[in-house]
């Protein structure tokens, strides 16, 4: 008996937590460097269509987004329920797109301008009329590289 009791008094040493802050800091820096803050609040409701032949958008800083969809409920009194265009944080008309693209271009180096991509985030129930108008505007200002944003289709 006494033999066992003797063993009891020898306690296991606790796991050292001294390195815990270091580990947490490491994770923290990882997330800090990978995070991209959401830049715009969506004023329109968008459900992206599904597709299989997707390609990824590589350089996010070179992408300008055009959102099209029905306004969120709190905006429906002012803007109705028909699909609308959103550029940056506000509702816009088709005629505002050239200005938008120009200002996006001015924010970048001249060398980077040819690599810029316009991503169209369009709700799947939108009619093509508005999308075609947008495409025509983009052609006029020769922002020809576009990306129809869509979700991966799961079979």
């Amino acid at each position, binding site marked *: 008996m006494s033999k066992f009791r003797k063993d009891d008094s020898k306690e296991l040493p606790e796991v050292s937590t001294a390195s815990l802050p270091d580990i947490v800091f490491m994770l923290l820096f990882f997330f800090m460097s990978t995070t*991209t803050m959401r830049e715009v609040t969506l004023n329109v409701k968008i459900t992206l269509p599904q*597709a299989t*032949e997707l390609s990824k958008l590589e350089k996010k800083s070179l992408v300008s987004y055009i959102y099209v969809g029905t306004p969120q409920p709190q905006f429906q009194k002012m803007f109705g329920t028909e699909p609308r265009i959103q550029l940056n944080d506000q509702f816009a008309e088709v005629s505002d797109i050239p200005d938008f693209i120009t200002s996006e271009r001015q924010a970048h180096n001249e060398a980077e301008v040819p690599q810029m991509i316009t991503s169209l985030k369009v709700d799947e129930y*939108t009619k093509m009329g508005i999308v075609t108008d947008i495409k025509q505007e983009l052609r006029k200002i020769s922002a020809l590289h576009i990306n129809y944003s869509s979700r991966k289709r799961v079979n």
Partner: protein
Amino acid sequence: MVSKKKVPGIPSSSLADIAFLLLIFFLVSTTMDVDSGLERKLPPMPPEGQEDTPPIKERNVFVVLVNAKNQLLVEGELTRVEDLREKAKNFMANPNNDASLPEKTVKDVPYFGPTPITKGIISLRNDVGTQYKMYIAVQNELVGAINDLREELSIQKFGRSFNSLNLDHKQSIQEIYPSRISEAEPKRVGDK
């Protein structure tokens, strides 16, 4: 002798808590989603005063029409979206040199030697009232058809997937199966 007074160290036990707090904030606010989509190039605006495009033989054009009711008409036939890919592949490849399918011109392609290359063009026209969902589905099938053909050729020739090929090999395959999808200006028929 003056006794040394020890300066108490700043307690660092709460360091972990602070770091955790920051960590959780960044964890919550981070968005890891990768943006992806169908990549397309728009045609440049035609220069002022240009006449209509030169006529193209009918056998070289693969006409895809989508109306406001989201119905699909391919080469004059009502088709389901699921069958579009096969039809487009058959059109672009024209394996039996059918007289009603596009002509081919022989051209010297690096790594392949003289190869017959199709002159086919896919023409997509949609209505103003077409749903975007349908449009993307059709675009997806057409892009998929060309991707499939490239993939098959790549496996057959190099024994590897198209995406793993180097740039030169890719370019010569792209030359054999060019991505020629033309979008006509939409007609305002059957609108509302």
